[in-house]
């Protein structure tokens, strides 16, 4: 008797599961159509940039909507790589960004651990302060940061900008890492301490290895933030030879003349690796962003 009920319940359960997941073919079709449309909207502007970058130099402005123009040429790409300092800009960006990501990660990982495991005086104000920093419009701090940087001789060099980036990434990184550390039960550390380990070695040997997803996310975010930033770079780097790529691209899209060919080619060359990196790690992003906010 009870077995029959169980089987019956299972059938009902499965039936509803299928129904509950919206399985009518018509509905599925609509869903696919909507999603395809959304993807087109998401991707079309990038396709346009690609198509302008492939146009031959004398027909950059045209009303044709073809994605691959009739006489597509790699002219703009040659120009941007060989006639402008594009590779130099990328190299500068790379040096600064990688350093930033590491330094920022180290600073945030240690600080977040402090916030997570101790209730020291100044903790709550500290957390509120970190939240407040997110609200400050960057434009507000540009002039004093510039003045300070000049006085500390940090202008026009990697170190000034890298330090600025590392520090500005700290609040967001601490938020994510602290949230993640909070989900790691203290019993693990306590067990290790009973075994004689010091506080810091539990940090290295237990907490950090367990936090690798969050650490990876923080590294990725720091990297993206530093890689894409324009406004801090604008004030800290004034000589063309040390420009990062956002500044470099900005010089191509000047006030009067926009060099469409080289600009779009540069955009594609920059955007593609970034997007690949981003998309490759996108599965982590979902778990990392939500893990910190949802208490397990």
């Amino acid at each position: 008797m009870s077995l029959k009920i169980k089987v019956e319940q299972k059938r009902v359960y499965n039936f509803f599961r299928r129904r509950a997941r919206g399985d009518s073919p018509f509905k599925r079709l609509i869903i696919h159509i909507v999603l395809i449309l959304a993807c087109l909207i998401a991707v079309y502007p990038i396709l346009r940039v690609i198509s302008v970058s492939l146009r031959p130099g004398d027909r950059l402005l045209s009303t044709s909507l073809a994605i691959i123009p009739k006489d597509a040429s790699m002219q703009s790409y040659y120009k941007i790589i060989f006639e402008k300092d594009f590779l130099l800009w990328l190299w500068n960006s790379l040096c600064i960004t990688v350093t930033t990501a590491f330094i920022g990660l180290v600073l945030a990982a240690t600080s977040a651990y402090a916030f997570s495991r101790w209730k020291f005086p100044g903790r709550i104000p500290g957390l509120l302060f970190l939240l407040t920093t997110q609200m400050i419009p960057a434009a507000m701090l540009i002039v004093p940061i510039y003045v300070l940087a000049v006085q500390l001789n940090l202008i026009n060099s990697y170190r000034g900008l890298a330090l600025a980036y590392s520090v500005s990434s700290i609040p967001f990184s601490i938020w994510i890492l602290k949230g993640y550390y909070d989900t790691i039960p203290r019993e693990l550390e306590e067990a290790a301490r009973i075994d004689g380990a010091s506080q810091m070695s539990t940090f290295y040997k237990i907490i950090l290895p367990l936090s690798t997803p969050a650490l990876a996310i923080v590294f990725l975010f720091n990297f993206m933030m530093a890689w894409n930033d324009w406004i801090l770079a604008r004030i800290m780097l004034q000589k063309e030879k040390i420009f990062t790529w956002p500044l470099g691209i900005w010089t191509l899209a000047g006030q009067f003349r926009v060099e469409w060919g080289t600009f779009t080619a540069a955009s594609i060359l920059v955007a593609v690796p970034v997007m690949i990196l981003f998309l490759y790690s996108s599965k982590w992003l979902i778990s990392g962003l939500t893990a910190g906010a949802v208490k397990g």
Partner: protein
Amino acid sequence: MKKFVTILLVSMILMSLVSIASASKVNLVLWTKEGEEPLDWNKSLVAEYMKANPEVSIELVKKIDVEVLREDFLTASLAGSPPDLLWTVNDHAGPFVAADVIEPVDNLFDLSIFVDSALEAVKLEGRYWGIPISNGNHLMLLYNKKLISKVPEDTDELFAIGKKLTQGGNYALVWNQTEPFWLVPWLGGFKGKVFAEDGVTPTLNTPEMIATLKFIHDMKFDAKIIPPECDYDAADTLFKEGKAAMIINGDWSLGGYMGVLGEDLGVARIPKVVATGEWPKPYTSGVYFMLAKGLSGDKLKAAQDFIGFVASREKQIEMVKLLNRLPALKEALKDPLVTENPILKGSSDQMVVGTPMPTVLEMRCNWDSMKPEMLAVLTDTKSPEDAAKAMQTSVEACIKALK
């Protein structure tokens, strides 16, 4: 131990020798607003000078456009580390003098060798604040001889010829419809001025301004001889592609057009305004050297020497050849290279009826106030009367804020 100390001392001595050797070099930092060909000329000037004067080292920094140069110079001065020299446009003198960050040059150079109109454009509070390099920077009427053989003398002719030429994607006339720099010549043609006699009180809500705005509105919506929307890029492209018979553009573009059109490029005055019988008065200025405040000693001497080098007759003629700009040196103006070149003749012909661009601080307010209203009139979203009124309100608020 002894060995260590000896090595330490020797290396310290060597290092100090090296620093003395490099300290004997005078380092100048020069910021320039130029790009493309003029920038190449900057680079070659600097290289040539450094070769001839090995004890001076000049670092040339290119700023993306004049706005960036202005912003960065002020910020750098604020932080106490401005560049030594600037190669820039005359209207930077206004803000820089107000902020007291540049030096007056009357006592440092013999200015009588330069053209008066060029000097007028950097005169403020009775003193001169820049050394002219080139003269002009003015708008003129450029035309494609293949598309139009005889340029209109006045605005009625312009409309008549224009209507015939504007068809099928081709336009009679193109110009940058987004910047008030292109509006002021017509304003001058209608006998209007942006400032009153005292040079600082704005006069934008005047019958002359309204007439000017009406004129450009008619050019677009009645006579229909200009494109519906046209910025600098679009105008430039249309003219280069042969889709526009005439363009109003400045002397900086001459090099580029000569490269594309060659012999077919013609230069003339912007057509006379029939209603007043006056030639339009484009703003003339030029490109100037400016010195950062506090420049003194060896650096000042080196700067003076370099400026003298660039302002020499030889280099001025070189500039004419390479860039098609009118020289600021009086002597160079008499050179046959200038007087017999038809393009330059046309250019200086236009300059004669031009008017020096005001360089006072308040001028910026004028530009900023005129710009959106001009755009509004050209998109038919405001009437000329309303636009002029709005301009005046804007500029008064802006000037008030400058106090």
